[in-house]
């Protein structure tokens, strides 16, 4: 029955370990069977050696989390092999949308007033003010073209690299990831300078000139990161 011209599984040794190219046109069952077979053949060679990391390249095949788990288990069962990465060209629509949501810049033109909460998953570009009592939350960075007088929470899913920038920075509270900072109790002069807030080396939120941001967060400089 099995009259394959080309094997479904191709192994390549690199300096990073083993790269397995898995064919993406055969059935999953065939693939698993052949993988198991090939790995079993090679099993005896230096089985006491150090762990070898395996990179899987699965082309245009989509693996469900369950299948992925199965593959990892299969390879891990071969003593000194461990799956380091699984590289697929495809992802589900859901994942793609989630990814898009987390990386896009959402621009909103409104005034976030007292009692209102504006929540976006990616970066937020707010064209307007945040008034005292208002809250803006973003999974990524927050850029405010107007005045920030309320609460801003950037990197709300745990991104400590996130920044908050505003034309007028007079927040009641700043939060980045799980770090929090509040306005001083004394009144400060309203500066006519755009400012940004970020987490510095000591793990504190600091507010500084906007221009410093290019040095502090080089990833903001140009193209959108992936």
């Amino acid at each position, binding site marked *: 029955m099995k009259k394959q011209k080309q094997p479904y599984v191709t192994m390549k040794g690199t300096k990073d370990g083993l790269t397995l190219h898995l064919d993406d046109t055969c059935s999953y069952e065939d693939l698993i069977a052949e993988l198991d077979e090939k790995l079993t053949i090679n099993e005896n060679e230096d089985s006491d050696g150090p762990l070898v990391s395996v990179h899987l390249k699965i082309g245009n095949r989509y693996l469900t989390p369950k299948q992925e788990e199965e593959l990892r288990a299969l390879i891990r069962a071969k003593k000194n092999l461990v799956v380091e990465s699984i590289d697929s060209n495809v992802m589900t629509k859901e994942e793609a949308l989630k990814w898009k949501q987390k990386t896009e810049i959402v621009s909103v033109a409104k005034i976030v007033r*007292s*009692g209102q909460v504006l929540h976006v998953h990616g970066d937020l570009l707010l064209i307007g003010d945040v*008034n005292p*009592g*208002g809250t803006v939350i973003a999974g990524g960075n927050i850029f405010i073209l107007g005045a920030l007088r309320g609460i801003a929470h950037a990197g709300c899913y745990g991104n400590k690299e996130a920044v908050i920038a505003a034309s007028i920075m007079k927040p009641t509270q700043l939060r980045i990831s799980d770090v929090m900072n509040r306005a001083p109790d004394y009144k400060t002069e309203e500066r006519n300078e755009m400012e940004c807030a970020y987490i510095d080396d000591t793990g504190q939120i600091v507010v500084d000139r906007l221009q410093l941001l290019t040095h502090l967060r080089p990833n903001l400089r140009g193209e959108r990161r992936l």
Partner: protein
Amino acid sequence: MGEAIVITSGKGGVGKTTTTANLGTALALLGKRVCLVDTDIGLRNLDVVMGLENRIIYDLVDVAEGRCTVQKALVKDKRFDDKLYLLPAAQTSDKTAVTPEQMKLLVGELKQDYDYVLIDCPAGIEQGYKNAVAGADQAIVVTTPEVSAVRDADRIIGLLEKEEHVKRPRLVINRIRSHMVKSGDMLDIDEIVMHLSIDLLGIIADDENVIKASNNGEPIVLDPTSKASIAYRNIARRILGESVPLQQLEDEQKGVFSKLKKFFGVR
């Protein structure tokens, strides 16, 4: 078909009822047919400020529940022949006695007969507020130059912006004490307007005569010499679409002020 304007503030005690009474009176003085509606069920005040308390027979709840017609419940203000009417709130029930749907119908009915229906909103953002806003086409937000009042005004504006049937709210800043603004102890007008970023409809200086007048059941607008009276008349004219410059607040500039006074006194 008239227009319904809700007068609201969020915070209590900033002068919603006084503003409603005076704007209503000022509009009636300008020849419009006006109906005032008090939606502060359980804590009604508008009738007292207007001096109409002793004429109430039926109230808002009676109308909403169909115990009487709107026309029967309306209290006529005899000072302005057939121009000014009041629909009083009930004192014995609470805010839940009326639903927003009922208010919408009621205000819609009143709009047929009157040029302006002014709705006095209770403090807060609960049921009473929802009732008051349900039938409105426009909104006036009253605030005072205090941080807490401005904060609540901001909240209310946010809620009003969500109501699609209400036009962009406009702002009235009440009880301004010019000497305190000058010394920096009170928020100044530009700061408030910039902060809330809505159109300013008018400013009213703090005036003891307002309290005196409302205790007597006579809106201050009826006294043409008072500062606050002029301010309310100006706001009424702005509601009618006239462009009237903002009043000077400074006490020192008596010259300009007395000129203004004279100008309005002649009218």
